[in-house]
C-alpha cells in the first residue's frame, strides 16, 4: 500500500521544528541564491517571463533578448563568443549533451572515451551508456588528492580516442585540476580529441578561460553560481561537432529542444556577471571561511580526515571531512536538528550502502567514506555562521559516536 508521503513528510517536519539559527552549507546539491538575483528573478516574473524566444511577437523577442544577454554574460566570463554557449535545463543535461552528443557526432574518428574516475555522475553514467553501444570507456585513476596524473592520461589517450572528460574542479573534494597541462597531453597524443570539462564548480570560483585551458566543451550550472536551479550551459567551441541527444521542437537552442527556462537562464547570466564583478572579494572571503571552518573542526573534533587537497589546489568553497566512527547520514540529520545543513558521502539507499565513488577513488576506505560530510561556503556566509557550526558540530559528532558500535579508543 502506498504511504501518504506528503502527510508523512509534514509530520516529520513538525517533529523536527525550525531551528532558531540556520546555516545552509549544502551548496553542492542546491541552494542559496544571491539577493540581487532573487530581486532580478522576481522582477523578471512580474514584468516579463511570458514570451517564447522562438516566436515572432514582442514578448517572444523579449525572451529571446534575455537568453541572448545571458549567453553574452557567460561567454564574457569564460572568454568565448555568445554563439558558443548552448543552454539546457541543468548541468546534468549539459554533461549528458557533452558526452553523448560529442561521441555520437564524432564516432567516425574513434570509439574510445576517456574520463577521470572522480567525475560527476552526470558524466560517468552517460559514459556507461556509451559503453552499451560499442564505445570503450577508460576511467583514469587519480592520486590521493584527486589529481589526474598527466602520465595516466597520456597512457589512456590514443588514436581511437574521440573524447576526454575531466572536471576543472571536483564537485566533492574541490580538487582544481592542472587542466591546461592535461589538455596539452591529450591533444599531443591525438590532436583530434575533443576535450570536455565539467566546470560547474569552477565558474566564479577559479579562473575559467576556455582559450587558456584549450578545452572544446565546458559545462556550467545556474545553481552553482548562486542563481536559481533550472538552467545549465554547455560551451561548444566553434567548429566542434556535437549532436542533439534529446528530441522535440527546437526553440532558440539548436542543441537542446523544448522551451527554454528563460527566467532561470536570465538569472544565470546575471549571477555570473555579479560573481565576475566581485570575483576577488568573493574568492578571498570564501577561502577565509573555508579555512576557518576546516581548521576549527579539525582542532575541536578528534579522528577527522581532510578529503582532497589543501591550499591553492582546492576550490575556495569546499570543505570535505571524514569523521571516523561516525555514520554520515545520521550526522547529517543530527546537524539538521541544530539548523546546520550539509550532505554526506554516505547514502543509505540500498541494502549494501555504496559510499561516494570520489572518496573511494582517492583511496579512502569505505568506513571513512561513510563518515564524510561535504560543506560548501558561499560569499554571504559570515564569521558568525562558521562560529555557530564550530559550536554545534562537536556536540553532534559526539552524540552519533556515542551511539556507534565502533568507538575511538579512550
Amino acid at each position, binding site marked *: 500500500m502506498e504511504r501518504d508521503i506528503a502527510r508523512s513528510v509534514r509530520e516529520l517536519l513538525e517533529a523536527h521544528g525550525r531551528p532558531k539559527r540556520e546555516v545552509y552549507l549544502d551548496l553542492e546539491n542546491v541552494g542559496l541564491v544571491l539577493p540581487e538575483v532573487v530581486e532580478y528573478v522576481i522582477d523578471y516574473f512580474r514584468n516579463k517571463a511570458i514570451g517564447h524566444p522562438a516566436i515572432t511577437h514582442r514578448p517572444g523577442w523579449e525572451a529571446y533578448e534575455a537568453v541572448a544577454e545571458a549567453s553574452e554574460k557567460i561567454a564574457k566570463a569564460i572568454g568565448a563568443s555568445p554563439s558558443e554557449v548552448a543552454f539546457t535545463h541543468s548541468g546534468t543535461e549539459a554533461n549528458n549533451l557533452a558526452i553523448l552528443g560529442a561521441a555520437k557526432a564524432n564516432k567516425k574518428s574513434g570509439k574510445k572515451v576517456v574520463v577521470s574516475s572522480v567525475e560527476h555522475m552526470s558524466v560517468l553514467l552517460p559514459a556507461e551508456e556509451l559503453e552499451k553501444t560499442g564505445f570503450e570507456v577508460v576511467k583514469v585513476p587519480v592520486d590521493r588528492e584527486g589529481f589526474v596524473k598527466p602520465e595516466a592520461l597520456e597512457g589512456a589517450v590514443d588514436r581511437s580516442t574521440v573524447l576526454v572528460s575531466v572536471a576543472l574542479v571536483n564537485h566533492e573534494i574541490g580538487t582544481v585540476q592542472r587542466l591546461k597541462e592535461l589538455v596539452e597531453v591529450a591533444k599531443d597524443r591525438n590532436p583530434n580529441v575533443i576535450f570536455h570539462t565539467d566546470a560547474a564548480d569552477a565558474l566564479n570560483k577559479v579562473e575559467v578561460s576556455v582559450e587558456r585551458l584549450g578545452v572544446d566543451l565546458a559545462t556550467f550550472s545556474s545553481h552553482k553560481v548562486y542563481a536559481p536551479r533550472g538552467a545549465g550551459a554547455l560551451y561548444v567551441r566553434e567548429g566542434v561537432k556535437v549532436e542533439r541527444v534529446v528530441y522535440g521542437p527546437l526553440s532558440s537552442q539548436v542543441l537542446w529542444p523544448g522551451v527554454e527556462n528563460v527566467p532561470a537562464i536570465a538569472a544565470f547570466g546575471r549571477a555570473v556577471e555579479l560573481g565576475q564583478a566581485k570575483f576577488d572579494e568573493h574568492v578571498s572571503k570564501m577561502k577565509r571561511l573555508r579555512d576557518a571552518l576546516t581548521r576549527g573542526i579539525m582542532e575541536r573534533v578528534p579522528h577527522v580526515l581532510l578529503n582532497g587537497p589543501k591550499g591553492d589546489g582546492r576550490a575556495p568553497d569546499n570543505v570535505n571531512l571524514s569523521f571516523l566512527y561516525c*555514520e554520515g547520514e545520521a550526522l547529517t540529520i543530527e546537524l539538521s536538528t541544530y539548523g546546520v545543513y550539509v550532505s554526506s558521502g554516505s547514502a*543509505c*539507499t540500498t541494502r549494501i*550502502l*555504496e*559510499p561516494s565513488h570520489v572518496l573511494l577513488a582517492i583511496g579512502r576506505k569505505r568506513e571513512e567514506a561513510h563518515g564524510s560530510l561535504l560543506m560548501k561556503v558561499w560569499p554571504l556566509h559570515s564569521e558568525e555562521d562558521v562560529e555557530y557550526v564550530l559550536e554545534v558540530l562537536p556536540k553532534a559528532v559526539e552524540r552519533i559516536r556515542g551511539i*556507534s558500535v565502533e568507538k575511538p579508543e579512550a
Partner: protein
Amino acid sequence: MASRIPLPYSKIVFELFKNPKNLGKMEDANAKASAGSLACGDVIAIYLKVNEKTQVIEKATFESYGCAANIAAASLLTEMVKGKKLEEAWKVSWKELSEKLGGLPRIKYHCSVLAVGAFRRAVRNYFKGKERPSWLPDELTPEEKQALEEEELAKRLSEGTAG
C-alpha cells in the same frame, strides 16, 4: 555523492533517532551479537539480559553504526523484545518492526532486517553450550541469512573482489 532518493522518514523514526531508548553497551549481558559491517555503513549490536529461570528478557540494549532508520530500528527492537520470553521475542519479524516504525521506505527495509538478524544471533548465542529448545530452528531465518550475506559482501568489497 552517491545517488540519493528522497527519504520520508516517519516521525517515529525521527523521534527514536533523537531520543533512542535502551542505548548502550550492557556490562552484565548474558547474550549479545552484532550484525552488519562498517564497510557497508551499518552495524547493529544487541545486548540481552535473560532471566535463566523464566527465559524472560529482562533488559535489552543496542548500539548502532548507521543511519537514522538503523538507530531507530535497533532501539525499537529492544523495546519490542524486552519483557518477553525468548520464544515469543524470537517471533518478532522485520516486517512487524518496519510497520511499528511507521512504515520504513523500501530502501530502508534492510535496517529492520539487520536489527532482527542481530537479535536472533544473540538468542542463538544465549543457547550456545545449552540444550537447544524445540522452538529454535536449526536453519538460519531469512533475517539472519541476509545479515550474513551483507557481511560476506562487505568482506569481498574490502578485499576488492567485488563491486
